[in-house]
């Protein structure tokens, strides 16, 4: 009963979504989608046209991709490290720490669109060069948005330990540092990935939105906005597709890293 299913499930796993995607693109290219959505090929250009624009402007697109990815990655890194540090502080001082975590997670509820202009004003004096201070503002937005997810998850990873493991460490008379590196840190690794799964897409979106307001004009998000404002929908779509690809690639890399690292962790124990 099972053996034939295995082969079949492999086929359906890839086949079904592919088929669906192909059907979607086909209905898009043939104009069926336009009829369903009651729109025109101006607002929703054909896929081939979008791809053409992407090909024609690959250099310019890559320039903007670089800028956006840089913001997303640096912000993600800073936010995650900061978030993890906050989680550590919260673990060391559980009484005040968890209260602080509640406050940090509340940042999640503030719309980034509101944060972006605030941060641009805050970072005005970071540098005389507009490109640098814009960068700082954008990174700050991404940092704040990815910090919350990391601190909450990492705190769980640092405190929700296997039963008796803490006691075991005590019987070894292990110091706090040993306890951290031998027990708490390894325990928190899967939680780090849980946080990253939320914050990686979040960092991309944070980068795109913060570009809207930045002083220095660069980035995929900014291009989407500029092109829509001058009514260049086909070009805007090219950048939207680019943004999707950035998100997908970053997520795929994360998944790959997760599977490799978690496997390595499993082998070790």
């Amino acid at each position: 009963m099972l053996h034939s299913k295995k082969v079949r499930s492999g086929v359906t796993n890839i086949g079904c979504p592919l088929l669906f995607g192909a059907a979607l693109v086909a209905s898009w290219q043939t104009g069926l989608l336009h009829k369903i959505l009651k729109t025109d090929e101006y607002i929703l250009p054909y896929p081939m046209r979008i791809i053409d624009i992407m090909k024609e402007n690959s250099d310019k697109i890559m320039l903007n991709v670089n800028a956006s990815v840089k913001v997303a990655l640096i912000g993600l890194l800073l936010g995650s490290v900061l978030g993890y540090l906050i989680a550590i502080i919260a673990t060391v001082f559980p009484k005040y720490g968890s209260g602080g975590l509640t406050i940090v997670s509340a940042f999640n509820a503030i719309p980034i669109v509101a944060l972006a202009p605030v941060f641009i004003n805050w970072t005005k004096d970071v540098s005389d060069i507009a490109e640098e201070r814009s960068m700082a503002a954008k990174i700050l937005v991404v940092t704040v948005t990815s910090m919350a997810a990391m601190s909450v998850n990492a705190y769980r990873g640092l405190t929700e330990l296997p039963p008796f493991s803490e006691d075991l460490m005590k019987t070894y008379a292990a110091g706090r540092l040993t306890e951290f590196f031998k027990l708490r840190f390894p325990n928190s690794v899967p939680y780090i990935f849980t946080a990253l799964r939320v914050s990686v897409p979040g960092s991309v979106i944070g980068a795109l939105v913060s570009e809207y307001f930045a002083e220095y004009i660069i980035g995929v998000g900014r291009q989407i906005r500029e092109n829509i404002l001058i009514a260049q929908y086909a070009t805007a779509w090219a950048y939207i597709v680019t943004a999707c690809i950035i998100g997908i690639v970053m997520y795929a890399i994360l998944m790959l890293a997760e599977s490799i690292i978690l496997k390595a962790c499993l082998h070790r124990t």
Partner: protein
Amino acid sequence: MKNLRKTMAFIAAMTMLTGAFASCGSSENSSEAGKSTVSESSSSSGQTAEMSDSDRIVAAAQAGKVGNWGLGNEYEILALLTKYGQKTEYLSQAFDMDGFDDDSITLASAMTYNELGLVKNDYEGGYGYGDTVGIIDMNNEGVAMLEDNLFCTKEFAEKNPNTVKAFISASMKGWEYACENPEEAAQIVFEAGSSVSSDHQAYMASEVKKLVETDTKGNTVNEYGKMDEEAMQQTLDLAKEYISLDDSTAASKLQTLTLDDIRDTSYWEDASADDFGDPEKTSVSVQLKWLPQCQFMGYYVAKAKGYYDEVGLDVDIVSGGGDIGETTAVNNSTVDFGVTWVSNLISADAGGMDLLEIAQVYQRSGLVLVYKK
């Protein structure tokens, strides 16, 4: 004991955090120096006043401190920079004048009727620079592009010619009245829900009046909404040169556009001659390019004074200021009419929309570059 240790460590951590914040703050001290240079430069105005406009433009461009809002408002600046042989780069200017105020932008874009007023005057929201600032006028530099116009889709105009004519007629009547009574117009706009302070509103009305009644060469215009061939052609030529489109199809279409593709004077002519019948569509809406303010006082006046009712139209004025261009809103029939800048209409038509200018309200460019003397 243990608790005490914990508390101490906690306090230490917090102190460190606060310290980090404080040091972060101290890096801002550099701007304190910046602030003092503001007063210095303004006090030593006599010395720098000798600088010519072209020197200013070159200096600011090379320092990378020319500002503009971008998003389709930048073409005149690009043309100006090109004129002086500078790289066509500018800073993205926020919608306040803080960047100008703190010197991160030395040559800032300003509309005569809005930002310039805020920079000069000291009413609420103003920076109070008074006459210590000077301007570079796009009209004088020969790079003026026409701004606020009225437009709709070709399809709508063909289907509802009388509605279009009636709307133009009543709107222009509104503009005429507003320009004759700018203070009353300002009050009407304020009561219509604008949140701009009434002082600034009054300033804006008087400045907008100038744009509506003076052409790019400084001559007085008596016919409201007239489409001046020469100014339109200059706008189209500059647009072809400075609107850069990534989409090659759109870019090549842009180069083929002629005035006849983007405007039709017949509706305005008939409207001026009061030569139109009953409107086909009586309930219409108009999308403004920006937030409700005196920039659009003609429409608010026409509505408040009942000019639209007189021609049998029920008009809904939709304020703008968002990311959705007014061109899109008109193109997908969210609204019937729109107010936009001619350059925006040109790029929309190049992109594949079928929009038609039906009246040109502003006869000259309201864009200036403002600098501290």
